[in-house]
């Protein structure tokens, strides 16, 4: 299963990006650059919709953490919504739920 990224909303108030597929080493390079460009060009809170994400590997979490730090530096927040229970468990186990969920 490949990985797709879609911008659902992008204005001065909010950036909402929806991911679908697997965020793993194979698929990540196809969206990583574009994702970071979107985050860095935006000066607003960010919401990532994970309702269609089936798997999250450590490289994917690393990408999310970098984005989290960039957004936090601008004084905003980055949150993940609609993640599956399995993905929530990964965030919990890694101690990241406090930051990302």
């Amino acid at each position, binding site marked *: 299963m490949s990985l797709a990224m879609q911008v659902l909303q992008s204005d001065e108030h909010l950036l909402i990006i929806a991911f679908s597929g697997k965020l*793993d*080493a*194979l698929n990540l390079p196809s969206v990583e650059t574009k994702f970071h460009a979107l985050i860095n060009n935006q000066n607003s809170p960010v919401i990532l919709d994970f309702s269609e994400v089936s*798997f*999250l*590997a*450590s*490289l994917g*979490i*690393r990408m999310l*953490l970098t984005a989290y*730090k960039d957004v936090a530096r601008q004084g905003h927040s980055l949150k993940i919504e609609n993640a599956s229970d*399995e993905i929530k*468990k*990964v965030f*919990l*186990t*890694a*101690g*990241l739920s*406090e*930051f990302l969920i």
Partner: protein
Amino acid sequence: MEIIGTIFCGLGLFFIGFRMISRNLRQLTGTRFKKLIQKATGTRLLSALTGFFSGVIFQSASAAVFIASGFHSARLLTLRQSMIIINWANIGTSMLIFIVVLNIKLLIFYFVGLIGMVYFLQLDRTNRSQMMFLFLQGVSMLFLGIFFIKTAAVPLQSLPWFREALQMSSGSVLLLFLAGGLLTVAAQAGSTVTVVALTLSSVGLLNLLQTFIIVLGTGVGSAFNILLFSLKMRGSEKQLCLYQGLFKTSGVITIALLLFLDYRWSPNHQPRLVSMLSANPGKQVAWLFLIMQLLPTFMLTLMRKPVIILLQRISSPTSDEKLSQAEFLSEPALQDPETALYLAWKEQIRLLRILPDYLVRVSPDRDYKKVTDLNVLHDCFEMVDQQITQYLEKLVKNPLAASLQEQIHQTQHFSSVLKDLESNLFEFVTTINTSFETIVNLPFAINLIESLRTILDTAIDCMEDQDPAGMEMLLKLTAEKGDLLQRIRKDYFQKNTSLDLGVQQSLFSLTLQFDRGCWLLRSVTLIRQKALTENQ
């Protein structure tokens, strides 16, 4: 038949003696020789002497090549030092030939008699004396073998069929050359084949030119032998085998060219170059063999730099070799403790960077990433860790200010926790690899693997950036989570009731190892955070 039988017996004694000398001397001097080579890193003279005596003792430069290769790949010897050892080991092998040329018939008889008396009087009681007498017995058998061949071969030359066969083969340079090469491949030492050829020549069975051609063949045989061995080697180890191959080949080519020109321009087609050194044909062969070792030593020493570049280009160090060697630890930097401490810290971060690779092997990403063998990673980590420990021990011996002394202790503490973290990670991956049933694809295991990778990656970023905010975040990621993990594990077991007991046990162990891994990562973060705060 009696003559052939006696020659055959002589050859047998010669090879048995040769084997006994090599085997027993190796045992007698093996450890000492290795220690000597290790010490021969300082001066060129010591390197040359070590090489020379190894050649004399083992009667084969291969032993020196293989030992020096091992030290070179472990970076105990540089390529240049190893090359000196090999050059002189080759020269050392020619000494046997000079000894054989001497007329020591009576000496051999007394020697054999003396060895026999030792056995009769049972003087070889200890292990070491047994090895020593076996070595001496080997020497006596080797010389006795040569004596048998010489004695039996004298009447051989008067037999008409043998003279005809010799005349027929004397015209075939290629045949003699191949015979020298093939015998060297079989005997594993060119000097021994040269001695046999020399013995046959001394009783008139081979003329001087034929003997010279056989000696040239031994050079090619030796080169072939070592290159054959090098096929199994990689990286730095292979470089010295290639050097030995180059040494032997260049020796043969140069001598062949010189002999060709010498014979060509000589008025009566007699060798003039070696005859200037000795009138005795046997000694001429010994000189030829020695020159065949001296010339490449001279040429390759002159062309040392391009040769080193060539060898490094042909067989560059493997990724494992690079991984197992410290990149930043510099001996001269020990003079400046602050720089040395910084370099030790850089090396520790390099070690930390290796750790996520342990988890790639068991992660879902394993199909897309290059995976290094777990045991190789473990060995490399241990080798670099040892180098850091030794480096810090040297550093702490310097007279230092109290604050710097404290920083070194903190770095040593960091090293010790890092080592525990590595052991824990090694166990974590081993648990997955050796579990009763495969657990690598179970969601619970994947969750632990990916979470640990994330925390490790975050730790590496924080340590490299030395970012206080990042460290605070890392402390939260590594906060105590034993209860949480037990809850997730129990929940998983309840939802998957068909799980085998062995699998449940493996997942339980994995949870504990994960928890300990987080705790150790928290410890390294706290040590580093403390060091940063105190330095500010």
